[in-house]
């Protein structure tokens, strides 16, 4: 089955670039140009993975990520952050703590993006969503205590 990728970015040139790359590699592709649209699209098309740009015209990428991870329907979808700015390590931490699974720095090589997409998808297939793994571990710890 083809895996569906949702790409959220406001730069149409980049959207097209990623679209053509992913279609060539045999993925399904949907896209959105802003945060609200991205969240709507995620709920509608249930992608296997979301690529999310940090800077969006309406709400910033961190916020989109938080909202997606708080949403029952979408919380299990892995997210790769796409960013040109990590002012501080804390930004990176915020991104990953906020639920992002990986990040790619702009300007990216299309090969690098593909590699990250495959790695994250593979990880999900093997271990399931991160928070599920965490829940599972918590469960185990609780049992051990009892």
């Amino acid at each position, binding site marked *: 089955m083809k895996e569906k990728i949702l790409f959220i970015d406001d730069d149409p040139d*980049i959207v097209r*670039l990623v679209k053509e790359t992913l279609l060539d590699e045999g993925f399904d592709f949907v896209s959105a140009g802003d945060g609200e649209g991205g969240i709507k699209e995620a709920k509608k098309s249930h992608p296997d993975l979301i690529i999310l740009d940090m800077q969006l015209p309406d709400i910033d990428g961190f916020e989109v990520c938080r909202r997606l991870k708080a949403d029952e329907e979408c919380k299990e979808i892995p997210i790769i952050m796409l960013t*040109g*700015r990590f002012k501080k390590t804390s930004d990176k931490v915020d991104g990953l703590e906020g639920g992002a699974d990986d990040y790619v720095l*702009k300007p990216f090589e299309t090969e690098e993006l593909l590699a990250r997409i495959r790695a994250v998808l593979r990880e999900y297939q093997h271990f399931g969503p991160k928070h599920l793994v965490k829940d599972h571990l918590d469960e185990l710890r609780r049992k051990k205590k009892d």
Partner: protein
Amino acid sequence: MRLRTKFSFFAILILVVALLGMSVILFIFEKKHLLQTMRESQVNAIKGLAEICKEAIISEDDLLLMNYIKVVKRTKGVIYAMFVDDEGKVVVHTDTNLLGYVYQDPVGAKAQNSEDLLIQSYKGKEGGELVDVSFPVLLGQDRLGTARIGFSKVVLNGIVEDTLSLTRRRILVVTGVAFSFGIFGAFILAQLMGRPIKKLTEGAKSIGRGNLEQKILVKSRDELGDLAGEFNRMAKKLKELDQMKDDFVSSVSHELRSPLTSIKGYVDFILRGKAGPLNRKLIEYLTIVKNNTSRLGMFINDILDLAKIEAKRFDLGKEALELPPLVEEMVTFFQPQAEEGKIQLEAVVPTSISLVSADPDKLRQVFTNLLSNAFKFTPEGGKVSIEAKNSDAGNFVEVAVKDTGVGIAQEDLKKVFDKFQQIKPSEGKMKKSKGTGLGLAIVRGIVEAHGGRIWVESELSKGSNFIFTLPKA
């Protein structure tokens, strides 16, 4: 000199001068007053004697005069007292042997001829300094005679001296007490002033180190309080500016990166033949576009790195690191470039080398920048080497990246680590000195952020040797 020391010093100086001046003035006036009092008592004594003489003559009461003379004689410092008649004959004298004696010495003559109070100093027969005080005894217009009292100057001086020494002692005690209080006060004042200044200095230092959250807590309502307020305002303003700069850098870099991503991606598409068949020229030109895009991307990264280094906001993930594998990795990474340029690449790292405390990613960046430079400036057939050893002095490991390249002129050695400094190699030797001019500035920033040092030794057309130190783990 510290402000507090200065302040104390001047306060004490002023105190000493003021107390000294006051003591001297007090002493002089006291002495003057004392002498005047003494003179007055002498005058009173002689006037009293003259009055008694007159009364005794009028009332023909010799006994009164004799008794009075005895009383005068008992007064301290009095050597003699007498009454001589208008012809100079002694009528009454404390020394009864001299009754009837006629004084003809100049002092006696002068006293007898004087119409008013007369004070004379002279040397007595026994050698003692004497003061003779005389006053005419008059009855209406007639001169009955002259009253004279002689004082011993030595005894008089003794009295003055005694009183003055008492005064001196008093002044000394008062001055001492005042001085102690003054010093204590100056010290307290210096402390009171010094503490807010110290706080201000510490706060300003902290702000200077980039800690813009620093608030200086000086609440006093004086100039120091105002200054602290100004400092706090300044820090706030700086923080705003810093934030603005951060936002600017991050948005600019984002705006630069997005188009670069597009350019790179689409050039890749064309090069892969997605847009149709390619010819040799097209491939050549597009490769140039691609390489320059990479350079631009590198430049943006370098500028951001440097901005972080300069803002001292460089996050180091330090760990105890083994050098040999990292150096090995770098050698492998640069091997293709070495082969392409027909340059020998070798690493000499003893197994006894200590662990270093360093961020592996940042250290890779240091090596990459230094090695890229070395290859860039080393001609075919040359050699590039990495050497590491435990430093002889201190807890450092010394790492050197050597090349046999064009070298750096003596006058340029200091400048190589400055940003945007690219040393122009002597003509013809180098064709590929394309860089951002930021590499070595970043290298220095990283090394110094680790607490190490970096320097370069070089000789033109012999080669360069970049040496840096890293703290042992």
